[in-house]
């Protein structure tokens, strides 16, 4: 008997799709999806619903997938669309004032820039060479994920809304209840942090090696 506990309750006929018997993979995938959806929707119930719907939709076609990576890409594409729909429908799902307060606390550019607003000598962005090649390396994605997790929660949320869920700026402002200025500030900070983290933990190490 195949162990299909990860997808029990979805009511699917899965006995002949071998990929679906890989419970470790499915559990891990589900965990990643729930984490991402919870961050985006700030509501664990809505997140579970979105993940469940995305999984049902994707697993119906699972037999046609060439492998785990293809399935993962597909379920995340579905999940991303579901999240975009929910965010567009429900407006102001978080308390905007709390969101901004948290972000204001992290306001400190003095580590990166001097008093005149120029790069501190040791903070100046370096050349990354050909960063595209990193996208094919497993280890890079672990570093990337760790850097994303290092962002303050709301910065990560807004950054991923823009760059992963692919909402436009106006839609994000409405969904989160912030102004365009707030959004610009959060995107600027997340980009500064993310690039610094990638440089320190990946690109500089790679060049030294």
């Amino acid at each position, binding site marked *: 008997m195949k162990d299909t506990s990860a997808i029990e309750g979805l009511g699917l006929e899965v006995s002949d799709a071998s990929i679906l018997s890989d419970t*470790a993979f499915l559990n891990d995938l589900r965990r990643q999806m729930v984490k991402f959806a919870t961050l985006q929707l700030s509501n664990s119930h809505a997140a579970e619903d979105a993940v469940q719907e995305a999984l049902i939709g994707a697993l119906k076609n699972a037999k046609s997938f060439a492998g785990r990576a293809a399935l993962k890409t597909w379920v995340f594409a579905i999940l991303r669309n579901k999240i975009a729909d929910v965010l567009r429908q429900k407006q102001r799902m978080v308390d905007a004032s709390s969101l901004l307060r948290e972000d204001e606390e992290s306001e400190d550019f003095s580590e990166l820039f001097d008093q005149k607003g120029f790069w501190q000598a040791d903070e100046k962005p370096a050349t990354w060479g050909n960063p595209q090649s990193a996208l094919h390396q497993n280890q890079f994605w672990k570093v990337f994920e760790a850097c994303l997790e290092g962002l303050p929660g709301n910065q990560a949320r807004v950054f991923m809304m823009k760059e992963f869920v692919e909402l436009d700026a106006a839609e994000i402002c409405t969904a989160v209840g912030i102004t365009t200025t707030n959004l610009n500030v959060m995107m600027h900070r997340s980009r500064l942090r993310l690039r610094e983290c990638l440089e320190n933990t990946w690109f500089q190490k790679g060049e030294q090696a």
Partner: protein
Amino acid sequence: MMNCLEATKLISESQERRLSVPEKVTLKMHVMMCSGCKNFSLQVPFLSKAMRAYAQWEDDEPKN
């Protein structure tokens, strides 16, 4: 001259909106003279690209 804090703000905002012509001109002048901001301006689009490719990474490690 525009400083690096302002330049990186504009580089970041250029991903969300179309910059005005005066903004583009002052930014371009700064970036021509500042290697740090030039590198930043190349890294920002890469961050977008990486974020979009994020869910497609091939996780080939054995899970056992």
